């Protein structure tokens, strides 16, 4: 529903902007145009721009902080347009023009800032989706545990970002065709090539549970190990024989 209303607001804004531009051409506006033609044309254009941005903001969705900014920006823009209609042409001179222009610009800045902030948050969230869990596993701290509680389940973030709830199917129609007669060999409960292997599947399952719970870590890259090895080697080379004996014995 939100998307329909957002699209509608956006379309109304675009429609008004087109109307305003059409009027501008039709009236052939210039310095000496009749005041009501200027007021109608620029009034419509002035309103259309905040409406378009408002439509975009509704589509992106409001967060608590951006809602106030958006509404305030929208109201400021409308006030500025209203002030222009009231002041033009008799009182349309300095400093009134500056005041109206500043209020209108401020309104637009607030509206654009809201859209920009929303877009940035979305980009950060979408990239964080893939790394959030990883960071938590690596830290394993109290903060991480808290964050883990607040995060959606792992499966929801990895590989299936748009996983919707799947229907439970009770397949009544998978009854075997009535004229299907199994042969003699199918009377056995189990058929197939059997292979028996001694295996520690149970311990693997336990390990999998521990890993899922974040208790186990993976080894660092070979390059990390190589770096540490090099550092140790250089320390060893710099050490005197006596020092070595003290530390390593022998």
């Amino acid at each position, binding site marked *: 529903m939100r998307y329909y209303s957002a699209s509608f607001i956006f379309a109304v804004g675009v429609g008004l902007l087109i109307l305003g531009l059409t009027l501008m051409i039709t009236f052939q506006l210039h310095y000496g145009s009749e005041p009501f033609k200027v007021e109608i044309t620029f009034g419509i254009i002035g309103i259309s721009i905040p409406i378009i941005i408002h439509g975009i903001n509704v589509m992106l969705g409001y967060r608590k902080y951006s809602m106030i900014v958006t509404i305030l920006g929208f109201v400021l823009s409308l006030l500025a347009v209203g002030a222009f209609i009231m002041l033009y042409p008799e009182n349309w001179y300095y400093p009134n023009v500056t005041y109206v222009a500043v209020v209108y610009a401020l309104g637009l800045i607030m509206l654009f800032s809201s859209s920009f902030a929303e877009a940035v948050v979305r980009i950060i969230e979408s990239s964080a989706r893939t790394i959030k869990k990883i960071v938590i596993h690596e830290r394993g701290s109290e903060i991480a545990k808290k964050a883990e509680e607040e995060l959606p389940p792992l499966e929801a973030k990895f590989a299936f970002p748009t996983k919707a709830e799947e229907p439970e199917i*009770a397949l009544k129609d998978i009854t075997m065709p009535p004229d299907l007669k199994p042969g*003699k060999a*199918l009377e056995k409960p189990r058929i197939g090539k059997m292979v028996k292997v001694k295996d520690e599947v149970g311990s693997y399952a336990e390990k999998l549970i521990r890993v899922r719970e*974040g208790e186990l870590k*993976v080894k660092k*890259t070979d390059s990390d190990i190589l770096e540490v090895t090099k550092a140790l080697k250089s320390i060893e080379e710099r050490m005197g024989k006596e020092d070595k004996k003290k530390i390593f014995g022998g």
Partner: protein
Amino acid sequence: MAKGLDVGTMNIVCAEMEGENVVFVQQRNAFLELDYSDLTKMMLDNANVQYVIKGDKIYVLGDDAMKFATVFRKSTRRPMKTGILSPEEKEAVPIIKLIVEKVLGEPNYENEIVCLSSPANPIDSDIETTYHRKTMEALVKKLGYNPFTIDEGLAIIYSELADNSFTGIGISFGAGMTNVTAAYFAAPIVSFSIARGGDWIDENAAKATGTPKEQVCAIKESNFELKYEVELGSVEGALAIYYDYLITYVVENLKRKLTEVTPPQVDFPIVLAGGTSKPRGFKRIFEEKISQVGLPVDVSQIRVAKDPLFSVARGCLIAAKTKEE
């Protein structure tokens, strides 16, 4: 108790614990249609062959279908195609139900947990796997089990990469599809499939050399070695070309998908499994392709699964055991 079930295009494999052992029960996911006659029925009964009669037809199931196909010089039919239930095969559901029933056996207790393997959605085809997955779950549920599914690639990681905390890349080169999963601490970061596998190699090699598909498949499964020096015009040569094509295609897509995410800077071993990865020389060519294409992760090692055919079923069994009470 719990069970793992690998529902593959070519094979259906069940894995379950029996004391300290894991028992794998394997059956070909195929059937052969024969015309009904009393003589044929008697012959099949005497040979202890698995079959069902429907109207004036006899359907020989599983491994027996493959054997009889050679004897009768007929082609087997398959309930699954490109990793999912075949939409072209109207007998697919009842036949696969029979095979699954006989491979899984009866549950040891009501609602015994079964983990089924399922293909991920392919990136190079409009195939959607949800219908297949839900149908298979429903079939297994109807047998008295409590089923859930995991991606084939992830099953390989569960089966083969416990030593690396289930971090790495599992690739299942199956008959119908190639499934790829990259996981970090058992959580998939990339999971996709490619709608090409062993069948695709067979079909193209058969077309290229004018050899029946069954014969190409037999050559591939006998003692085929993957190498670059092959006789021109031979089936082996065509197989080598299409194997090379498939491996390159998989590696390039893996690189592309890994680039889309931000993989963590840890070692990523790669495990290859599935029937299509069985020929000698497969690993060597895969290694060459990886070094040519280059992946955006540190590949610590590339190895073929301990038992490429049973790896997915084993991984499913491990996953199922984690859900046991």
